[in-house]
């Protein structure tokens, strides 16, 4: 028999899945428009709900940014597998011999780029509404948010796969996810708060390391467990 039994190259699967997800998002804008709309709406609401004569936005911007990251991220990542479920596309993907951890990482990359773009929008929108000064270390702030976004996306993609097949679906995702995100929010909000306050980078190195460790652990756990979750 001349059937082609090639093992798909791991990295090619990662790239192909990421490119496919981004291409679908670029064409449908199903998630990005909703997430971007949410961020702008949150910015407007915070702008009117916070009395800036009593509270300095610079002091609370960190917490607001992380809350917005998680909530807008949930809107986007939570729908990853809903889109995949149309016409059984994800089931078809699972019928191929493609390594499951490679599929997972491809989806994480696409989700990360999508959510991080929304994080950058959040930073811009909040900067405009609250006249924020991003201090002496804007790059460190963006790195801190990138590490947090990666950790969030790694877990949300894994749990998104878990909840997609349940009848509760997207409503179950935050219930499962929020408790696990607590360490990330604690370290992330603390680090970005200090950076926004103009404190030296050396003061946040510990939190940055913890954030990075959280992201790496979440990625590793996701890659290891994704196959089990989607097969069962």
């Amino acid at each position, binding site marked *: 028999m001349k059937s082609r039994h090639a093992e798909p190259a791991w990295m090619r699967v990662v790239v192909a899945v990421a490119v*496919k997800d981004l291409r679908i998002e670029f064409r449908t804008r199903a998630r990005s428009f909703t997430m971007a709309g949410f961020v702008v709406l949150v910015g407007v609401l915070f702008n009117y709900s916070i009395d800036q004569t009593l509270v300095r936005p610079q002091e609370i911007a960190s917490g607001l940014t992380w809350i917005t990251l998680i909530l807008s991220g949930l809107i986007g990542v939570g729908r990853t597998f809903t889109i995949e479920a149309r016409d059984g596309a994800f089931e078809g993907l699972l019928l191929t011999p493609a390594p499951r951890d490679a599929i997972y990482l491809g989806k994480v990359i696409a989700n990360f780029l999508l959510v991080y773009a929304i994080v950058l929008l959040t930073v811009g929108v909040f900067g405009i509404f609250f006249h924020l000064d991003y201090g002496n270390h804007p790059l460190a702030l963006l790195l801190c948010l990138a590490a947090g976004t990666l950790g969030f996306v790694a877990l949300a993609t894994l749990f998104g796969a878990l909840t997609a097949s349940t009848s509760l679906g997207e409503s179950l995702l935050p219930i499962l996810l929020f408790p696990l995100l607590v360490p990330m929010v604690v370290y992330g909000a603390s680090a970005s708060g200090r950076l926004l306050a103009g404190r030296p980078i050396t003061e946040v190195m510990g939190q940055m390391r913890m954030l990075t460790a959280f992201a790496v652990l979440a990625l590793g756990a996701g890659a290891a467990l994704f196959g089990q979750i989607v097969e*069962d």
Partner: protein
Amino acid sequence: MLPAGRITTVLGPNGAGKSTLLRLLAGSLRPTAGSMSWEGKPLDTRSAQWRARLGVLSHQTHLYLPLTARENLAFHARMRGIETVDLNEALDKVGLSDRAHDRVEGFSRGMRQRLALARTLLHDPEVVLLDEPFTGLDARASRLLEGVLRGLRDGRRSVVLVTHALAEGLALADHLLILVRGRIALDTDAGALDPAGFAEEYHRVVDEAENPAESHR
């Protein structure tokens, strides 16, 4: 038994377990009892090796609707590690070469089904599982599918065809199974059956399997 170069047609009423059988073979479901073997060895239907040998066309097309026909096939080829494949030829075989760059969401049900067939056969699988492949196909596309299935038989592929279409199922079959309530009610060579009286024979087998007490009166 799924011998090479033979089409096994599986018939049966709704709920008989035809699609479940295909899902078990495809590894989408785990068996709660029993075992499967392939070429004399225990079969792990969830192994990458088995999936590489398998082509599945199910009720759902497994296509990404926002992608074009060509992009769907290219993505599927990458997921199967196929480096060199002529996508134009694959699309031409199912009569979609002129729609290669159109998004699938604009396709009719029949066109999606044809594209799904191209995707199923792209990696030249040894075992082909087809669940109601004639659904949504017009007469021309049905003839095309029949030709493809005969080509698979000639190419020594093992084909399992689940269908409600008695005449088409029998016409294509080398081997025929009738499932009723998850059990095999008839297991026979298709050549032993008379096409003219097959519909009557089918209903008799199903009725006997569904109402064994009445059939013995």
